[in-house]
Every structure is written in C-alpha cells, then in structure tokens.
C-alpha cells in the first residue's frame, strides 16, 4: 500500500459524526451501482407478490398504488462506504403489505427483475422499518435507482434494499441472496459494520 500525496477521494461535506456509521463517508451523490442491466418492466405487467404464506398474495401496479403510502426522510448506507443523509422517499410500508398475508415464516428472500435476490429477517421488515418505495426526492423513482419500485430497508446496508423488487418469498430458514452468497454478511448492520460473512 502506497499513499499518494494529496489524494483524498471525493470531497466530504461536514456532518455530525453520530449520523455516520463506522468506516463510512458522506456523499451528496447518489451513485448508480447495479449488478446487471436496468430492467424496463411495463407497469401493465408489474406485480408485487408475497409467497410462502398460507396463500400467495399479489398486487398489480394499480392495486399497489391504491394502498396507503408514507413519506419518509432517512439516511442510507452502502457497504462500498458511502452514506447519503436525509434522502426522501415515498412508499408502501411492509407493515401494510405483510399485514395482508397469513404467514408464520421468520425470513424472506426478496427477489427482483433481472434475478437479483437478498435475504432478510421478517422482523427487520416490520415495525416501520421497511417500505416498497416508488418515489425518491419528490419524483417517481427513476429506473436507474430501482424504479418503478424498490425495497427500502435503511437500517441495513443498502444492498438489502433491492432495486426493481418484485416480491418476497417467505421462508423458515435464512438463505443467502445474491451478494450474501459471495461473502457478504447475512444481516448487514452498518452500525456494527457487518459487511462480510463473519464480521
């Protein structure tokens, strides 16, 4: 490792350090980071489904948008070390969505257009901690940032907030999703710096 004189990486705004998890730096950018091409599912074909409960439940885009929505301002933390503070979102709470399903599973695998998956405990989706978000910064969520809708779970590293989400598979066991399979942490708490398996 060889330090290059005068290299700092991106300029970092001054922020309250209590808002920045360990090892993170704050950015005002919103990097577009994807593991695959941006999908372009027409809204007429879009559904969000939850299966693995007593019966599968599914919403079309119109049905989804008829559900009660919330707006929220929150901080997001990417495992690649950038954090973005005070991001504004609009979405449907997972409390609403899961509230319409009869289940007793403890884990989910969230799945997206293009094949991306990520796993979470159900408990981390409930109690006002998670949304299916369709609005960002006061506008419809752009395709490059996961639109028409993405999972939003800001208390975990942002790879858990699956872009282009299309549903949840309820499971009794915690099975690794895409990045978790390649060595990323099964849970991903930025405040305990759980980036990789075994952290």
């Amino acid at each position, binding site marked *: 490792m060889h330090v290059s004189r005068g290299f700092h990486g991106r300029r970092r705004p001054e922020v309250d350090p209590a808002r920045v998890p360990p090892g993170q730096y704050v950015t005002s950018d919103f990097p*577009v980071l994807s593991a695959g*091409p941006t999908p372009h599912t027409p809204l007429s074909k879009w559904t969000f489904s939850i299966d693995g409960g007593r019966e599968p439940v599914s919403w079309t885009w119109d049905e989804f948008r008829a559900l009660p929505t919330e707006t929220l301002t929150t901080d997001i933390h990417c495992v690649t070390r950038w954090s973005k503070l005070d991001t504004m979102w609009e979405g449907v709470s997972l409390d609403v969505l899961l509230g319409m399903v009869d289940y007793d599973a403890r884990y989910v695998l969230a799945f997206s257009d293009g094949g991306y998956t990520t796993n979470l405990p159900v408990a981390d989706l409930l109690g006002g901690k998670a949304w299916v978000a369709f609005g960002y910064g006061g506008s419809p969520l752009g395709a490059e940032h996961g639109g028409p809708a993405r999972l939003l779970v800001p208390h975990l590293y942002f790879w858990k907030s699956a872009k282009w989400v299309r549903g949840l598979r309820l499971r009794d066991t915690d099975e690794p999703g895409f990045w978790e399979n390649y060595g990323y942490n099964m849970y991903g708490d930025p405040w305990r710096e759980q980036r990789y398996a075994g952290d």
Partner: protein
Amino acid sequence: MVDEETLDGNAIGGLLMEVFGTEMTTAVATCGSCGAARQVAELPVYMPGLGTVARCRSCQSVLMVFTQVHRVTCVDLMGLASLG
C-alpha cells in the same frame, strides 16, 4: 438496450490476470444457460462496488462473479459452460 455505465471485459483484464495468472480477455466464454460463446473482452461487465459481475451478452445470465472479502478474492464461474 445497454446502460451507459456498463463496461466490458477489457475493464477487468487486470483482475483476471491477478486471479488466473494470465491474460484472459481473449479467452472464449461459453454461457452455461444459452450456449452463446464470446471473448471475455466483449462480455458486459458490471462493477457495483460490492463485486464484479460478467454476464452473457445474449441472455444476460451471470457468467462470472468476483468479490473481495477481507483481502481474499472469491471467484465464481458457475455460469460458464466453459472458458478457454
């Protein structure tokens, strides 16, 4: 339709050299899903920071994934039928 940010296998020439010990961008990658065969240099490559993903240009299946976990490089080539 290819996203602006998408790179190609040329961009991971260094990573491949480190992992395989030799220049790999001219190696032919055959997709395990659809059978399409292309040189590694021509595969769409995504580098979202968490890792590097090389996909089949024809069917977009994942062919290769590289991550670095605590300084150990993990390589998954399961999407390939062959590489060489």
